[in-house]
């Protein structure tokens, strides 16, 4: 193809060969209008991997995280994640991988589908045209019930064009009710949002209408919000509506405070599960990429998810966003080098230094949490009372929350290296303090020994 043809090929303005609507969840149809983006999108079915990212193997399913790091399974005792918890992979697999997970052998809610399928038409159906209303009932269904409806409805697709784009003009938009409710709660709070200027601006306004990302956010923010619809911490079960816990801010500490003050609709204190071995009431953290990214220097500089995970690429005479969403380490020249004038090898090395430090601390935390659980188990065996163990159990909750927050986050610390290390440092401190509390409790049972009363929690 010569330049003349290139130009010709491009000069035709954005012709739409087919009309697309809110109900077109099949990406193939959109692909007729935007074949270049569709090509990239389809590639998410290819298996790619890096030291810490993705999955490049040939087995049907990615490897089990819980086998690679047994301390994860130990933390999750008593919860579905201890049964089956694997590496993630490309978007094309999101629905089938969900349907294949053994976590579904435990009762799960319809909320699961919020982030694994192109579900808006189904929400509208449930809400007689009102997607938000439909969403508000979706959690009451069992996963199997809602999944059946989804397949009937013919919209059983992984995330599709319509989930991030307005069919009318292809503008980015968020469609996920969970995100809209979460970001509105964040905007309504006074938590600092240095990386989200449009929220700071909305707060200065009259606040007549709630913050609406599709109206108030900048184009640059939308390049991260579309991802924040799913790559976030959440609560999801039939007990309570799907919740993004952002009412007090986006840091691990803010979110812990939010859960600490949350009650279930039945009034009971919020908890994810009771640890099978220790009886501690613990929290489960899920992939808080959006939250951790917000704590980092890239976010403060307005560097969006799409900048790194969907970099622009030159296709013939046109420049488009690479819709092959994947690890930027597979695409360093486009993902990093337009901003960082360093050789690819050097940029890889920088990521590696950051990730290895984070990995080392993560394993250190794993050792600490296992030691704590062992300690509590031994203490119970030797007859320690629940009262005496209470401080240790509270410390387990705090330690696990922080350790899980960074373990579940998928960049191995890269999205905010110092913050991730700080959260892990706190996790380690609480886990070890827990062990001490156990030993003190046992010692206390023997008046002759020093140590006395269970340790008070040292303040943050």
């Amino acid at each position, binding site marked *: 193809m010569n330049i003349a043809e290139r130009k010709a090929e491009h000069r035709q303005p954005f012709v739409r060969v087919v009309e697309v609507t809110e109900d077109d969840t099949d990406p193939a149809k959109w692909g007729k209008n935007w074949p270049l983006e569709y090509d990239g999108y389809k590639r998410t079915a290819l298996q790619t991997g890096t030291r810490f990212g993705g999955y490049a193997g040939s087995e049907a399913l990615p490897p089990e995280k819980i086998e690679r790091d047994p301390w994860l399974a130990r933390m999750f005792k008593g919860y579905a994640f201890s049964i089956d918890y694997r590496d993630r992979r490309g978007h094309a697999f999101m629905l089938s991988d969900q349907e294949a997970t053994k976590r579904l052998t435990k009762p799960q809610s319809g909320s699961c589908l919020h982030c694994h399928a192109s579900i808006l038409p189904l929400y509208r159906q449930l809400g007689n045209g009102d997607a938000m209303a439909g969403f508000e009932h979706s959690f009451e269904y069992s996963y199997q019930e809602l999944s059946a409806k989804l397949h009937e409805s013919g919209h059983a697709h992984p995330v599709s064009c319509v989930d991030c784009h307005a069919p009318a003009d292809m503008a980015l938009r968020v469609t996920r009710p969970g995100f809209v409710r979460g970001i509105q709660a964040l905007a309504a709070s006074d938590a600092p949002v240095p990386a989200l*200027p449009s929220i700071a601006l909305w707060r200065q306004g009259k606040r007549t209408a709630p913050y609406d990302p*599709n109206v108030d956010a900048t184009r640059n923010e939308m390049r991260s919000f579309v991802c924040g619809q799913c790559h976030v911490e959440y609560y999801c079960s039939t007990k309570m509506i799907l919740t993004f816990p952002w009412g007090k801010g986006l840091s691990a500490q803010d979110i812990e405070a939010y859960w600490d003050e949350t009650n279930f609709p039945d009034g009971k204190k919020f908890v994810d599960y009771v640890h099978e071995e220790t009886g501690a009431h613990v929290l489960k953290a899920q992939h808080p990429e959006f939250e951790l990214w917000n704590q980092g220097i890239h976010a403060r500089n307005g560097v969006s998810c799409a900048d790194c995970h969907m970099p622009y690429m030159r296709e013939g005479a*046109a420049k488009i966003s690479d819709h092959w969403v994947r690890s930027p380490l597979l695409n360093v020249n486009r993902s990093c080098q337009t901003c960082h004038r360093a050789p690819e090898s050097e940029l890889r090395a920088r990521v590696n230094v950051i990730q290895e430090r984070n990995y080392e601390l993560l394993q250190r935390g794993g050792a600490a949490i296992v030691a704590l659980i062992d300690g509590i188990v031994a203490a119970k065996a030797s007859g320690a009372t629940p009262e005496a163990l209470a401080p240790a159990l509270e410390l387990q909750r705090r330690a696990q929350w922080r350790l899980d927050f960074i373990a579940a986050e998928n960049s191995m610390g890269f999205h905010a290296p110092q913050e991730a290390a700080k959260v892990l440092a706190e996790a380690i401190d609480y886990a070890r303090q827990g062990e001490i509390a156990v030993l003190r409790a046992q010692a206390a049972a023997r008046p002759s020994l020093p140590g006395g009363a269970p340790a008070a929690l040292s303040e943050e």
Partner: protein
Amino acid sequence: MATKDRSEPPSKRAWLLRSLIPASHGRKQTSSLVWVLAVALGLSAGVGAYTFSYAKGLSYFGTDPRACTNCHIMEPEYAGWQKGSHHDVAVCIDCHLPRSFVSKYLVKAENGYRHGKLFTTQTFEEPITIKPAGLAILQSNCERCHADLVHDILRPERGGAAAAAAEFPCIHCHWTVGHGERAGLGGPLSATEFGAQPDAPNMEIRD
């Protein structure tokens, strides 16, 4: 869907656009009054006929990059441009002045007025940093030359180059195309600088 609201950006977004510009030092944008003034009296209104002609005011209207370096203060940028990826395809005014004949000379008058005055009185802030107005011009020029290539990634319905400049400009990623790594340079120690440091009580003020 809410996207229709995007077509005419609410005024508060316009405000936001400005608030998002990096390093704008919050200096007020030159008022239209100054523009009128500058056009009416020409550059001399700003820097005086002597300064203007001496500073090769006429060559300032040409396209020769060296015209800009009549002010040594522009030399870091000149040096950066020479090493930059565009030195063989674009000169200063290709990026920093609007295309249309009229507005080009309006801006030249305004720049000449402001730069000349600031340079003579040495009252500008350093490192010299491109202002919102300058960024908008820049953006329109990137778009102008690369229209074919970037056609698909422009979103005119969110407002023109000014909006793009503030929300998601080309230089969000391509910030080195003009001058390579940033070529700013801090200015001399000044009296005000000390005054501006409450936590340094023992700081003396230099004459």
